């Protein structure tokens, strides 16, 4: 019998907070910028400077930790993580070690209708590192270039318990985490710009065993899809190693998106010995309970609550409600549309259907699309009134999506108004019947599919504009 393995995954997620200034100095956190222009003596680690904590960064961290049901520390401090790597000019990173701002939280994920609670070990705050740039490709470049613009941007680290049991669950967790953080408005959460980054600890163990297998750490996954792919690959790799009687080596591996594999990043220098000690340049923090309660009171409606509200108030299915609630901008768009056209199910069908399809196709966010809620509302009204058919509406919608024009204008310009005039349609119906005598005979012989063909022919002649219900009725009448 082939042994059954269980997958064990924990995620370490790093989120850049969207404060205006860096965590310990007043340099800007703006993304991009000419290399080494968003820096000052503090974030460059010049001698004699003193870091001072940005209160907003701490507030955002507490805000997130509360939304993740964490316990907020009463006493906390920063620590120095020492390492020799030029991505930080100081040769150390200010982070947190034994007294993080928050611990012991959880969030719920839903997969195939099952809700699972995933533990959050800790939430802490640290400074982001600078960026290494390679003039040629990373493997052939003879040297590295360093840009410290990102060094010192507040970076929140959220560590999960090893509670995830599949790559799909890992993805669902990351998506839920991103949704929550977006709702909290504390980060841009752009994986492509690196403001949301994710590393994974992965191991497998024989089904039923309590002891964890040896884990590997996977890095360099730049999208939800690559997270899922990388983990699926790594799980399979480990099972294969064990199946061949080998041992999994504890190491860091990088996901290669192009090749679809993980590769060992091990180097002979990898002696992880960070020699943490309390950061002497920063005084400890005693977190004011009243402040924490004020932050708690200011928390917005979170994705789960919004999903429940959509099911309860709008009668949406759990699936549709979850999809809308997963992205704040989409949820806001949905609600604005419902205000214009108060038929939530219809609106939801269009947003989760055509709109999502086009957003995915063009790989853009709803905010980057010129379509407005009143326009979508107007389109749905035109369908309801029978001015255009549902099929034509899709063509009109695509034009609205691309150009941001009103549906009425598009229908006028393109002559797409539905033909609901019986006299006009009868002529075409007669023509189609005469030209397709064999199909008509089939229909009369009881082949229902023949009718669909004939409807299609009428649609072809009218370029999709004929009212489909009317065409159906007229064809049936004529062929009786």
């Amino acid at each position: 019998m082939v042994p059954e393995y269980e997958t064990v995954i924990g995620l370490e997620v790093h989120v850049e907070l969207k404060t205006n200034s860096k965590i310990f100095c007043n340099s800007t956190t703006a993304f991009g910028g000419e290399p080494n222009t968003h820096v000052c003596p503090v974030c460059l680690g010049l001698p004699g400077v003193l870091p001072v904590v940005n209160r907003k960064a701490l507030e955002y961290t507490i805000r997130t930790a509360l939304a993740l049901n964490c316990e907020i520390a009463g006493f906390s401090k920063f620590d120095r993580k020492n390492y020799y790597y030029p991505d930080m000019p100081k040769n150390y990173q200010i982070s947190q070690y034994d007294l993080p701002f928050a611990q012991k939280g959880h969030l719920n994920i839903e997969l195939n209708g099952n809700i699972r609670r995933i533990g959050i070990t800790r939430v802490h705050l640290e400074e982001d590192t600078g960026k290494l740039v390679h003039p040629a490709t990373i493997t052939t470049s003879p040297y590295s270039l360093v840009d410290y613009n990102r060094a010192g941007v507040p970076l929140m680290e959220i560590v999960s318990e090893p509670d995830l049991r599949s790559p799909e669950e890992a993805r669902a967790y990351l998506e839920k985490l991103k949704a929550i953080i977006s709702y909290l408005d504390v980060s841009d959460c752009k994986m492509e710009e690196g403001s949301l980054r994710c590393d994974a600890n992965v191991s497998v163990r024989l089904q039923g065993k309590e002891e964890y297998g040896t884990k590997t750490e996977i890095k360099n996954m730049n999208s939800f899809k690559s997270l899922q792919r990388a983990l699926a690959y790594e799980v399979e790799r480990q099972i294969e190693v064990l199946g061949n009687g080998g041992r999994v080596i504890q190491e860091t591996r990088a996901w290669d998106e192009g090749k679809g594999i993980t590769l060992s990043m091990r180097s002979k220098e990898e002696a992880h010995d960070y020699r943490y000690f309390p950061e002497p340049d920063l005084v400890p923090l005693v977190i004011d309970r009243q402040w924490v309660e004020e932050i708690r009171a200011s928390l917005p409606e979170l994705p789960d609550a919004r999903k429940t509200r959509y099911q309860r108030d709008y009668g949406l299915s759990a699936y549709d409600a979850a999809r809308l609630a997963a992205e704040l901008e989409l949820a806001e768009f949905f609600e604005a549309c419902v205000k214009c056209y108060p038929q939530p199910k219809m609106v939801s069908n269009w947003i989760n259907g055509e709109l999502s399809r086009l957003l995915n196709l063009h790989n853009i966010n709803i905010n980057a699309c010129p379509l407005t809620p009143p326009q979508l509302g107007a389109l749905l009204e035109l369908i309801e009134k029978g001015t255009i058919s549902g099929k034509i509406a899709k063509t009109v919608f695509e034009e609205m999506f691309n150009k941001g024009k009103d549906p009425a204008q598009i229908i006028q310009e393109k002559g797409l108004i539905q033909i609901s005039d019986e006299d006009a349609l009868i002529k075409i119906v007669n023509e189609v019947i005469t030209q397709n005598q064999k199909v008509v005979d089939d229909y009369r012989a009881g082949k229902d599919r023949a009718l669909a063909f004939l409807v299609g022919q009428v649609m072809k002649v009218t370029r999709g504009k004929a009212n489909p219900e009317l065409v159906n009725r007229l064809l049936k009448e004529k062929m009786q």
Partner: protein
Amino acid sequence: MDTMTTKETKKQVITTSQVEHVALLARLELNEAEKDIYVNQLNNILAYMQMLNELNTENVTPTAHVLPLYNVFRQDEVGRHMPVEKVLANAPEKEEQFFKVPRIV
């Protein structure tokens, strides 16, 4: 922590292999004679620090910092940046507006 609170005063705490390990982490290249010097010096420093263990600290609460201060914050405001010429002024090597360092992967 426990070893620090016990009163034993080991003479030889730091070994040559520990000096080699720390030298590697600090990217220092040491010859044998230098390693001996550091083993000696570090042991002397630690032995000196052992004197603190002679104090009775039973009623002293541990602290993460020497100053009796908490919660020093700044507001989230952007200030002035350094001109890039100054930023790169002390760079041993540079290219365009970047610091240039040995290849790191």
